[in-house]
């Protein structure tokens, strides 16, 4: 899930933070060679459109699940949320727990059967099956456009990180990393992206895990860490997940628990994890329905553990770093370090030669997995939902395969262009990220009603999606023009920026759902035959009665959910 872009714009470090030696550089170079090798190896196995866009639909639950998570686990996520943990404390973990786990389980258990059985190749493709061409086109065009723009923004942010942390030239970082992704995705398609994402997932963990382990050794365990943070910041709020959310003014995020539960935990999280094609595409590549249902559950199990390598280093920074980190403006003015540098600072604190190279490789791997996610999703939506739907309907499979390869390269080049545009006009970042957020919440309303309510009609789906999106844009503009409007949207004069995103998402989802229901009830019900395999009540979902209980997705979803509840109670 996207983090506030302002968090990524760090410009304050006076000189680069980390110096690499020959072993570190060898580790990084070997990594680039390895991901390219995977692409070249898999090229000969990518002969059809299904191979390229859906990885032949042959992935096991583990491969699809880890790839599903890895596509989201970008390096900017790692650095941004470590920074947020330093700034806001353990509240940042909400984005990994309530902001992810219930939605991932819901995708696996409730929604995946419809995506998978309908045999759609994309989320816009599902909308076409359920609501017709206008909804597909609206969703596909906005998704494709936003995906390449977001990819460019992430690319620029990553190059900036490499410049600040390592002193690398920003242009070299942009071109080398993005062309590497372009080569291995264009060669092996989604299969290459997925296999590399699993590789990247392992490297992210192996590169980042040492920081929390050594940090906990240094402070003497979790209890001592809490005491040390309380001493350093003067209160105990930084290590409580829920107990400070009773009022907007009691916590540093300026948010109320209703915003976290309804805005983040319901609309934003469910919108992202169940309808953002970037992540859903990985699960569509599963070899059968049970693997497709299990994959998001495996992803959820690991997602629950990610705060250990992201949030904990931020909290450890509060306890052990000798300097006080500040916001960007203060850091630039004082020549000190900003929140955004907490993860590299912790890396430099504990990691010597070799380990530093592995840590930096983890960051690069995170960036490349996120970018490959964007690029594969873009090429699929462009080829199937825009090019084939609007430009050339009846070409051969070979033609669409070639188009997929070319659109991969073009998508990367457009992303690079966006990165250079952002370099010139930094304010674009805020606007593009806001634009992306406009579509997610209403799209979730449309897909949810489409899957679970037979009475929803094509007109209802289209107008609900359009008006929900427009209402989000309206609220965003309203707050831009008149900041006082935030208190109306978030229902409190104490609300801060973070709360705006939650409540804007919630309202736009409500608008989408209300409009969809109202227009559906006013229009002719859809023909039952058209709903087969796309809607609950008109789709036969294969029974799992012959499968032992420990192999059933619902059993593992229950285990993960109990773990999720336990974590929230423990850190209450």
């Amino acid at each position, binding site marked *: 899930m996207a983090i506030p872009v302002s968090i990524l714009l760090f410009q304050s470090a006076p000189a680069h933070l980390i110096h690499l030696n020959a*072993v570190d550089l*060898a*580790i990084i170079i*070997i*990594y680039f060679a*390895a991901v390219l090798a*995977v692409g070249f*190896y*898999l090229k000969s*196995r990518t002969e059809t459109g299904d*191979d390229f866009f859906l990885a*032949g*639909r*042959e*992935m*096991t639950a583990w*491969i699809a699940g880890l790839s599903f998570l890895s596509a989201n686990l970008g390096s900017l996520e790692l650095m941004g949320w470590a920074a947020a943990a330093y700034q806001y404390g353990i509240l940042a973990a909400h984005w990994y727990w309530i902001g992810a786990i219930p939605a991932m389980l819901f995708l696996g258990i409730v929604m995946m059967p419809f995506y998978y059985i309908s045999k759609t190749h994309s989320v816009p493709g599902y909308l076409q099956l359920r609501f017709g061409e206008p909804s597909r086109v609206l969703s596909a065009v906005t998704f494709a456009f936003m995906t390449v723009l977001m990819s460019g923004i992430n690319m620029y942010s990553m190059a900036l990180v490499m410049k600040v942390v390592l002193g690398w030239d920003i242009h070299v970082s942009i071109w080398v990393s993005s062309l590497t992704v372009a080569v291995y995705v264009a060669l092996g398609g989604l299969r290459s992206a997925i*296999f590399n994402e*699993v*590789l990247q997932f*392992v*490297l992210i963990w*192996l590169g980042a895990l*040492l920081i929390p382990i*050594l940090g906990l*050794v*240094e402070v003497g365990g979790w209890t001592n860490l809490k005491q040390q943070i309380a001493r350093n910041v003067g209160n105990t709020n930084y290590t409580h997940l829920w107990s400070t959310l009773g009022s907007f003014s009691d916590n540093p995020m300026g948010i109320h628990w209703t915003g976290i539960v309804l805005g983040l935990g319901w609309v934003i999280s469910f919108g992202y994890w169940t309808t953002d094609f970037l992540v859903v595409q990985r699960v569509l590549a599963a*070899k059968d329905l049970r693997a497709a249902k299990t994959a998001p559950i495996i992803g959820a199990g690991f997602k629950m553990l990610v705060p250990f390598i992201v949030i904990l280093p931020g909290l450890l920074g509060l306890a*052990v770093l000798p300097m006080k980190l500040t916001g960007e403006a203060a850091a630039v003015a004082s020549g000190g370090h900003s929140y955004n540098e907490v993860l590299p600072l912790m890396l430099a*604190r*504990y*990691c*010597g*030669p*070799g*380990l530093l*190279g*592995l840590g930096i490789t983890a960051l690069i791997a995170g960036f490349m997995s996120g970018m490959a996610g964007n690029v594969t999703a873009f090429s699929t939506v462009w080829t199937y939902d825009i090019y084939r739907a609007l430009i050339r309907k009846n070409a051969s499979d070979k033609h669409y395969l070639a188009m997929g390869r070319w659109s991969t390269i073009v998508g990367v080049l457009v992303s690079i262009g966006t990165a250079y545009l952002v370099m010139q006009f930094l304010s674009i970042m805020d606007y593009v990220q806001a634009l992306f957020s406009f579509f997610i919440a209403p799209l979730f309303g449309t897909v949810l009603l489409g899957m679970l309510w037979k009475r929803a009609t094509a007109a209802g789906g289209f107008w609900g999606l359009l008006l929900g999106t427009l209402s989000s844009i309206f609220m965003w503009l309203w707050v831009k023009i008149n900041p006082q409007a935030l208190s109306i949207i978030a229902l409190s004069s104490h609300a801060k920026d973070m709360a705006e995103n939650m409540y804007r998402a919630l309202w736009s989802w409500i608008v989408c759902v209300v409009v969809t229901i109202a227009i559906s009830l006013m229009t002719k019900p859809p023909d039952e035959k058209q709903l087969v395999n796309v809607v609950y009540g008109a789709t036969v979902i294969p029974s799992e009665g012959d499968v032992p209980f420990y192999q059933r997705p619902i059993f593992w979803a229950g285990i993960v959910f109990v773990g999720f509840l336990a974590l929230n109670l423990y850190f209450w």
Partner: protein
Amino acid sequence: MAHEQSSFSIWYFIGLLVGLYGVLILGAGIHDLVSPPATTLALANLHAGIWWGAVLIVFSAICIYFFRPGRMG
């Protein structure tokens, strides 16, 4: 397409790569133990490079053993 998946296991490949990393990191750790650099690292006395390099090698060996091409058939 199932035969294609069985002929290429990403876990075997990961095992090879992580093993190589383990050897490099373990080697760098041993070098630092033999001739300690002037370092400001916290917990330098724990020699994290040595045991983390060993962890990577063990992880690598497990992946290579269980996902080697012959076994995957």
